[in-house]
């Protein structure tokens, strides 16, 4: 699914050049639930941005579903983001004043295929995150946990193979966090590949595999004991 080979990335911060990634190599198989852990400044966000085609590595190769996207142009990268990748952000990034349903439909705007059944697909995505009853609410009328579930539904609408979650529970209380992690867990069971970035050991513990990033290098790669999702509805 993902093959990363010797990824490096540095950028300027004022006069200093920061080496965020110093040669990162790993692979992720289809259907894996991987947590990337590290302190702030360890390079985990940079790595996620590269995996999400929001950023490009200086050196190294990045293959997604067998396609080398290290040097993809804007059109190719955008199309891959739209079709293959679903993003979940710490700050949710929902459009205010726009209903949950319309927020979920947003990626369809940039899809190449026609989406005459867009509303139906959005409803289904909202069902997956158990939020059908809030479809017509705007974000300000939703709790933080609900907003993040809308964001997950949005990430799911184009049925992406890969879901990238950047501190998805960072802005949530414990109970909402558990709900979000359960949803991600279930998606993984259903065969989606999930990469989750966090600095929280407990959150990372819900994944199948843990990559630890320190100072731009991978320092640990562990398989975790299986932890099935709690029954739906508890969240």
């Amino acid at each position, binding site marked *: 699914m993902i093959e990363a080979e010797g990824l490096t990335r540095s950028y300027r911060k004022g006069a200093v050049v920061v080496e965020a990634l110093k040669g990162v190599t790993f692979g992720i198989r289809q259907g894996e639930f991987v947590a990337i852990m590290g302190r702030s400044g360890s390079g985990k966000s940079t790595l996620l941005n590269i995996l999400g085609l*929001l950023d490009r590595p200086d050196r190294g190769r990045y293959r997604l579903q067998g396609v080398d996207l290290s040097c993809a142009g*804007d059109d190719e990268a*955008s199309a891959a*983001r739209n079709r293959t990748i679903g993003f979940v952000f710490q700050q949710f*990034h929902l459009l205010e004043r726009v209903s949950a349903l319309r927020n979920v439909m*947003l990626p369809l705007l*940039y*899809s190449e295929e*026609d989406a005459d059944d867009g509303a139906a697909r959005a409803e289904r995505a909202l069902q997956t995150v158990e939020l059908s009853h809030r479809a017509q609410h705007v974000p300000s009328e939703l709790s933080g946990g609900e907003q993040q579930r809308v964001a997950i539904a949005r990430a799911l609408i184009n049925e992406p193979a890969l879901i990238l979650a950047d501190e998805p529970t960072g802005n949530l209380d414990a109970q909402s966090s558990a709900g979000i992690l359960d949803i991600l867990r279930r998606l993984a069971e259903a065969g989606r590949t999930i990469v989750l970035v966090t600095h929280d050991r407990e959150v990372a513990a819900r994944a199948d595999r843990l990559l630890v990033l320190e100072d731009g290098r991978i320092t640990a790669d562990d398989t975790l004991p299986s932890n099935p999702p709690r029954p739906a509805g508890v969240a």
Partner: protein
Amino acid sequence: MRRQGRRRHLARGLLLSLQMLAAHPLRTALSVSGLLIGVAAVIVMVALSEGAERRLLQRMQAMGTNLLVVNAAPAPRVAGRPRQVPIVTTLRAADAAAIVDEITLARAAAPAVSRSVVVHWEGLNTTTTLLGTTTGGLRIRNIGARSGRLFDDHEADAQARVVVLGRTVVRALFAGVDPVGRFIRIGQVPFEVVGVARPLGTDPGGADMDDRVVIPLATAMRRVLNVPYIHSIFVQARSSADLGELERQVHETLRRRLDVRAGTPEPFLIQNQAVLLQTERGTASAMNRLAASVAMLALVLGGIGIVAVMLISVRERTREIGLRRALGATRRDIRLQFVLESTILAAGGGGAGMVGGLVVAGAAAAAGPWDLVVPWSAACAGFAASAFLGLAVGAVPASRAARLEPVEALRA
């Protein structure tokens, strides 16, 4: 396939842009208000200017079309003292006939005399202008009968004491009485009123063309003024394009007939309607230039307003732009969205200004004393220019939005 998909995106993006604009109604309204007021002002100005043009043409028509007027010149002073007769007395009725005979560009010519007179009826009197001319002169000067009739050639030859009254004179003397068939006195001479002239309004010089009484030329010369000479010749050209050349030929003919030697002043003055029209048009075109300047200014200010609002919008929505890029928007998609928004803004402002301007111009034309022509073409041009402006000025904020790096935009 891909193209078709893109077009569908355009429609969806349009809807989205409208939603975003509707989400900030006050800002949207403020940003387009400059354009709105500008376009409306231009439309009203064009309406006024076209109205003035129409009024001018109507007045020209009322004077008589394709008209030259030859007037006897003021008499030259002798030893610094004015003469008893204030004008040159050499112009004769035969000169008018000669003009038609000799100049093919002249369709018709008619001699005329005029003087200020006092008109009496039943103890009332009013000062007005006496015009004595031939039936041909009536035709050239567009004088018709509203009630009663005009005098005919037979009466003209017979020096009949018949008169056609202008509306202003009728109002002064005959309150609520039909003047046709009554007898008035012009000076001491009694006249029968045979008709009332069709109102003509004011001439381009502002003189009231209805404040006059019209009698046959011969009657005026023999019975009222007692003069052998005439004051004016009305000459009608075959077409307005001939007026300049006709004027030159009339000069030539009259100089020859009046035996004017080279270097001496001509004893006549020629008024050319075309020149009059040009002068008036000059004023009108100054007004048009002003309208055009206002239009340019309005577009520039409107454009600045829209650019400013769009730049604010791009800055404020940086995160949204980052999100859209993450969800699969290409740089092109982002650029398109902002260009669309800018175009919608400008077209909306221009459209509202168009409607506002048309409503104001239309209402003023219907209600007020102003001469206004509702300028549909200017309105459409204003709208089109606004939309194009939006398209053009949207490019700057749109490419700024498109240049944003998604990672940084999301962090903003």
